[in-house]
């Protein structure tokens, strides 16, 4: 250590504690008062350009009658767009269909995801585990446009694989996508196929957050399987699982590509979710005014979702803070 003392003594700045202030723009940006703003600025800029401006635009336009194909300038119409949307029974049907879709899709995916997640939990010694999990997660990464179109073929009563199986069992072919009573379920099944792996992923992540010691303790305490699940796994994994459910809820609410390519919202209106009808009204009918109003309504619903999401999150933070 003598060497270090000498080396230290040789540095000239040792007379005073201060090394002297740094100067320059970088130093200024690095100052504690400035830094957070600098760091958040890029996201803020993105946010203002791609979110605030369009949202204000949307809000403004929702009070106008404006059709892109009419060749006429927008006409102020007050709340007309809103009242006519809310008075239109099809809006309510589409919305309720969407909610049913969300509840069923997310519900089934969650239950299946939890069960499969538990099944895959002890799979460390599975030969080819990484390949198996990759295959399991594959549906998530298929382009929805392609998945939708191809499922149309798989479901096809004449050419489809699925109906071939059904027919070889001696049963009549099922008109999966063209029977108004079946189509909704068929579309739902594809969503379940596509997104259950995501819930499995979340469940595995949730299971990873459970401390091993507590599980061992639970085993020693001879808790039943269900008690262990409820008291230990759910207690620790709840947060991540909840996140998964909420992310899925959000995405299910937005479902469009997948269904659009399978049924175009039909037959009739059997699979017409709100995102599809909004797309139709905006980019098939080019009714920008009333579409904006519908978009505003959906924005409000989205905000309600978001608020729920955050409430759940902060509930957890508050609990940990209390503990």
């Amino acid at each position, binding site marked *: 250590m003598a060497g270090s003392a000498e080396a230290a003594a040789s540095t000239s700045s040792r007379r005073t504690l201060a*090394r002297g202030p740094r100067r320059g723009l970088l130093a200024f940006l*690095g100052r504690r008062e400035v*830094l957070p*703003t600098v*760091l*958040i600025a*890029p996201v803020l800029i*993105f*946010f203002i350009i791609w979110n605030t*401006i369009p949202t204000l635009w*949307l809000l403004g*336009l929702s009070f106008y009658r404006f059709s892109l194909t009419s060749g006429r300038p927008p006409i102020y119409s007050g709340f007309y767009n809103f009242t006519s949307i809310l008075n239109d029974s099809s809006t309510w049907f589409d919305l309720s269909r969407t909610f049913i879709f969300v509840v069923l899709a997310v519900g089934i995916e969650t239950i299946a995801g939890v069960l499969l997640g538990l099944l895959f939990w002890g799979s460390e*010694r*599975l*030969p080819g585990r*990484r*390949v*198996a*999990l*990759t*295959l399991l*997660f*594959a*549906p*998530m*990464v*298929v*382009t*929805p*446009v*392609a*998945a939708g*179109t*191809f499922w149309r073929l798989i479901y096809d009563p004449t*050419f489809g694989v699925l109906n*071939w199986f059904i027919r070889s069992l001696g049963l009549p072919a099922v008109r999966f996508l063209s029977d108004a009573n079946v189509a909704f379920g068929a579309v739902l099944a594809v969503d379940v*196929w596509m997104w259950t792996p995501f819930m499995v*992923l*979340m469940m*595995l*992540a949730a299971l*990873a957050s459970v401390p091993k010691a507590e599980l061992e303790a639970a085993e020693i305490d001879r808790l039943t399987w269900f008690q262990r699940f409820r008291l230990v796994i759910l207690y620790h994994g709840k947060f*991540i699982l909840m996140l998964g459910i909420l992310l899925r809820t959000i995405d299910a*609410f*937005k479902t*469009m*590509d997948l269904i659009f*390519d399978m049924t175009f919202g039909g037959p009739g209106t059997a699979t017409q979710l*709100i*995102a*599809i009808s*909004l*797309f139709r009204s905006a980019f098939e009918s080019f009714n*920008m005014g009333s579409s904006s109003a519908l*978009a505003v309504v*959906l924005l409000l619903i989205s*905000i309600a*979702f978001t608020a729920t999401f*955050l409430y759940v999150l*902060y509930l957890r933070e508050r609990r940990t803070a209390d503990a």
Partner: protein
Amino acid sequence: MSERVRESLYHALLWLVSLIFFAPVFWIALSSFKTAPQILAVPPLLFFRPTLANYARLLAEPAFQHHFFNSVALSVLAVLVAVAVSFLAAFAFSRFRPAATNFLMFLLLSIRMLPGSAAILPVYLMYVAFGWKDSFVGMTLFYAMFSIPFSVWILKGFIDGVSPRFDETGLVNGASWFSIITRLTLPQVFPGVVAALIFNFIFVWNEFLFNYIIGGINTSNIPVMLATGLSNGGGIDWTFLSSLTTVYILPPILMVYFFQRYLLVGMTFGTVRGEV
């Protein structure tokens, strides 16, 4: 039943589940080696003489190369921009907790919750008004915007898990904030960064609607090519659809394979940092 038999059965069950989920994807991939009548054959063909003609046709297509390039460039650039920007913001949110943190995080998330067709509408009008439609930069930045909320959320979770003592150690020793962010914090939240990159990559990679509406000839990606190119002579071009889909899902599937660990860790939003 012996322990070994039980384990083998258990493993067989796991593989069965994986294969069931994979089956439709497999069916698409299998179809890509068939001729058009073979794809529609009843009963379905499981054994046949595979043809590579579909791929030969696809890969020789200049349009494929163009669209594929767009897909790669858009997703990679957008995701890199988004994660870089989100990382800085997440760091600020986590470390300095500025007054509006919660509100901003809330707003960011609400963008993600808006159905695509609602989000695209004003953006489309804005792009028309500003002349940004079908511009590569406009498209990239838009995708970046859409990737930001999720990235900020994941990364903030991870950065929250990194003790501020590390920053302080850096600060005391004279490191600049830039160095603290890039050399001390970034390597520690690497799984989160990878998870954010992959999830957003998959989103942009498969994105159709926005590309279709605010893109154009210069910027259209493979999903748009899939949607517009799938009809041929009034019919659906199944060979085209299956071969293009198969080629197109390879990159994300390889990512899932190679970065599986990070995906799992990433989805814990920073609550778990080790192996999953």
